Structure formats: C-alpha cells, structure tokens
C-alpha cells in the first residue's frame, strides 16, 4: 500500500478550493483513496468533499494519504502536491 505525508500549506487549510481540487483529482483515480491526520483518527474517503471538510485539517497540519493498486504512486504524488500547495 502506498502512502504519502503532506503538510497542508493553504491558509484556509484543507477546505474550500484546496479541498475541491484535492477531491476532484482523487475522483479521477480508479482506486480507493484514504486520508487521515498524522496525529491519528479514522481515515476518511478522499473522494468525499464532505468527509475531507469534516476532517478539519488546518494550515500546518500533516495528513497521511494512502492508496493501493496500479498507478497509486502517481496519484499519491499528485494529491500530496495539491495538499502542500499554498
């Protein structure tokens, strides 16, 4: 299973536009995408904007993104890059 850590750089955290961009990219991937805070807690569905918003990731917090299957590494790179874009 592939895994990436990313520190959220956007001032609004992983909400609003950054969340939408993240989810839109995740939705294009064929496999399941899970997202959790590095501090713990249940991972949520990376394709659900409502679950991502409710995760309430603030600027400076680190998330762990996981995916498995063909092309997973590439998708994870893209998602980590979106999350760490200011």
């Amino acid at each position, binding site marked *: 299973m592939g895994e990436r850590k990313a520190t959220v750089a956007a001032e*609004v955290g992983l909400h*609003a536009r950054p969340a*939408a961009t993240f989810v839109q990219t995740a939705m294009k991937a064929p496999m399941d995408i899970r997202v959790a805070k590095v501090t713990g807690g249940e991972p949520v*569905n990376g*394709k*659900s*904007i*409502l679950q991502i918003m409710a995760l*309430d990731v*603030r600027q400076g917090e680190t998330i762990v993104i996981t995916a498995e299957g063909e092309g997973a590494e590439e998708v994870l790179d893209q998602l980590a890059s979106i999350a760490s874009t200011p």
Partner: protein
Amino acid sequence: MNLRGVGVSPGIGHGPAYLLTARVPEPPEGATHAGDADQEKERAVMALAQVAGELEARGDRAGGEAREILKAQALMAEDPGLVVKIRSLIDRGTAAPRAVHEAFTKYRDVLEGVGGYLGERAADLDDLRDRVIAQLTGQELPGLPPPGDTPYVLVAHDLAPADTALLSGHAVAAFVTEEGGPTSHTAIMARALGVPAVVACAGATTLRPGVEVLVDGTSGEVRARPTESDVARAESVDTARQAAIDRVTGPGRTKDGHPVPLLANVGGPADLEAARSCGAEGVGLYRTEFLFLGRAEPPGAEEQERAYRAALEAFPGGPVIVRTLDAGADKPLAFLPPGSAEPNPALGERGLRLLRAHPEVLETQLDALATAGAGSGGRLRVMAPMVTTAEEARWFAAACRAADLPEAGVMIEVPAAALRARDLVAEVDFVSAGTNDLAQYAFAADRELGALSELHDPWQPALLDLLAGLLAAAAQAGKPGGVCGEAAADPGLACVLAGLGAASLSMGPAALPAVRAALAYHTLEQCRAAAESARAATTAAGARAAARAHLTELEALGL
C-alpha cells in the same frame, strides 16, 4: 423600525426590501416510497446530478470566486458518502425526499459541531438540500427578482453562494441577513461586489417586503422607512467616517497621547491576518475553543503549541492574551461532561468551573502555552474564563505558575467577580472584562434572545458601573485591566471605557479603525467627562447621549 446587526461590508445602501425567506418544507418523518427501491434511488441520484449540474453552470456564467465556490458545492451534492447514505435509507424504505433530508442533516450537524468557518458552511448544505428536495418534489425554489431600475436590499435568513453568484453589484443596494458571521458567504460576496452588508441582524426577516430600507454596512444599523434626509445624512456620515478613519493610523491613543492599546478578538489562526491588516497591536482575546470543538478527544500538546505560536509570531511586539478553554453552556464537549444534568447551562459548570473538574485538560493547555511562549519571545498572557471568586483566581494563578507561565489573569464576566474585583486582582497579574457575558448575568437576560436586546445595550448604566468599579480596582492595584467584548467596538463607548481607565480595548478586527479614529480626536479629559456623565444617566439612551455631548468630534466624524 430600527434593527442592528454586525456590519461586515462597509458603505451605505438603501432601497426596497426583497425578502428571500421561503424554505422548502421538511419532508415528513417516516415517509416511505411505493416499493421500488431501485427506481427511487435512480430518482434521487438524478436529482443530485441535476442540482450539481445547475450549480456548475451557474458558476461558469458567474466566473471568478463564485465559480470556485459553486464548483465545491456541486462536489458536495454528489459526495459519495452522501450518496451511500441516501441509497441505504431508500433501501430501508424511506422516500427519496426524506432520505435526502436525513443524509444532509447528518453532515450539516457535523460541520456545525466543528463551528467557526465550517459551521458557516452548514448553511450551504441547507441550501443544497432544499434544492435537491425541490427538484424531487417538483417545487419552485424562490429566486431573485429580475434586475430592475431600482436596486433592492436583499433580506434573508442566510444567503447561499447559489443565491448570490449571479448578482451584480448594480442590482443590489445592500445585503441584510439574520444569520451569518464575518466569514459567511454573504460577507465574502458582499465585499467582493462592493455592496454594504449587515449580518447577524435579529428580526431582519420581519421587515415587510417592499418597504424602503437604509443599511449602514459599517455600524450595522438597519432602518426601515427612512426619510430622504435620513438617507442624505447617512451618506454624508459615511463619507466623513471613511475620511476620518483613513487619516488616523498607528497605535491607539487619545488626542493628548494617552496610550490605549487596541487589540483584536481572534477565534483561530485564520483571523490573525484580518487582525493585522486592521492595525491590531496584539490579541486581547484568543478564543481557544476552535481547537477543541467537535472532537472526541482533546487536541495534543503539539497541535496546541502550533496554534499558540502562530498568534505569538503574528504579533511579536504586542501582548497576546490567550483564554483557556471556555466550554460548557452553549459549547458542550464530549470529553468534558458536566457533573450532572444542567437545566440552565449558562449558570452551570462552564469555563474555569469545568476545567477545575478536569484538571488534566487545563494542565495540557497551560503546558502547551508555556512551551509556545518560551520559544517565541512574544508577550504571552493567559487568562481563565468564567471566574467568580478570589479563591478561583488564586487557584488558576497557581496552575499557571506551576506551568512556568509568567502572566496569569482572569476574565471578569460574572457580577460577583466585578463587585469584588479588588480581591480577584490581588491574586493575578491582570484582568479583562468580558462585557457580553457580564451584561447577560448582570441583567438576567439571555444573550441569544432578541426580545431582550434592550437589556444587552452596552450603554446600560448598571453595566457601566460594574465596569467602572472593576477598572478602578485594577488601576489601584497597578495591574492592567482591559475590556474585550462588543462594548469596546462602539467608538463612543470605547472613549468612555478609556475614560474609566481601561488599559486596553479588544474587539473584532473590523471595528478597530473606527475606534482608533474616535480616540485620536478626543483627549483623555474628554473621555473621563464622558464616562462621568454616562454613569450619571438613568437609561442606556441617556448615557449614550450624555457621553456623546462631551465627545464633540464624533458627530462630525460620522462615528
């Protein structure tokens, strides 16, 4: 009829009221479908797709910021978690409209529980829900009037992005909503359009459709049936006010140079930038609830340190006054249950009372504060909410000292604490008056009840007496006594508070420029005379008029 809310987009606007209030009725509980679950699911999914498509199309037509907001809303409408929930409800027999209602409610409650920015997104979900239900039940949704010659004042409970996306600044004279805060969509869109807006305006939807309304997006005043001269005066006042505000910069001080540091009330790291851009000299009230709300477990030390350090780094020179967790009452937390059921939570185990019952939560918070403060070189002060007696103040100060925090204080928001402020001040390094709760408790009037708003008028002489007494007690002890709360945000009242000896004033960032201007045009002597006259009055209106008679420049400044 005169109403008052919170001005979030400056300027004066007037026109006939257009009320956008109709909501889609809630589909009845227990409603079931005819039996073909697959067909019902298909119907629900189609309605979601239809609404998502409309929102995207609207966003594309509007462009800019609205496009991104509506794109995010479209994603919410087709959220996989939501769809799964709707499908499973329909599988159990629930009719599609009811299933949509219940699935949306689940998510909106989560967002509301988190509060702050996310809490304000709950209104977006309500709007989406109504659109989908309307689609399913064949109802017409209320829409905006076609743009006419006369710009209208748009009045609503709350406005959703879909309502405002296609508005042009020419069609609308002002926005007034009953709900919402400074970061609600109404506020964001209004500022983007350059249209005055007032939010959190109780009673706004009782305005009669079509009645002429005058809106002051700075002071938050909303007046029905203004005369022509009211409108002319409001417009010239606004021009004068903007000019006065633009002329005055720098730290807060009176005309004769008496310093009154102007600080910001901040609800989380996202507010720090607004505070800086409004010229705040520090943070007078850093509410830490945002770290704790909507969680099953309290946040760890590291996460807390980061949030506190952000504030200290934003204001390296000024004080940063952090209030420890203020839970209980309207902000219950799963991991801090009160000892027993509370029939009257406002008078229950809240604030410091609750933290004394859960000392480990306070200890973690104080340790995180001490670590953040030690590493920063900033001026960190820590205060406890809802402190009633000197013994409680002593307990809190001891807890702060044990954590190596240099400056410990208490909020004075209980009348008993205000009356015996001398005893509390002796135990701590500073005090800060929280005028909103102090008024609620002194006048036995629930803060949330619009019907009692007269009793929450911060000009009430009894409130001024309590503030005078506690500020004098702090001054006598040679310790800073500040004021945070709505009272400090009124330019005239801010002068009165300076006259009563307030060592600093803390308020929502948007109010800072007007208060800075009011102070800069009056001497400390004038402020003291205004305070004395206000306290000699017997009504709130009388106190305001008496004070303003001494604050001779306010009128000309439009403040």
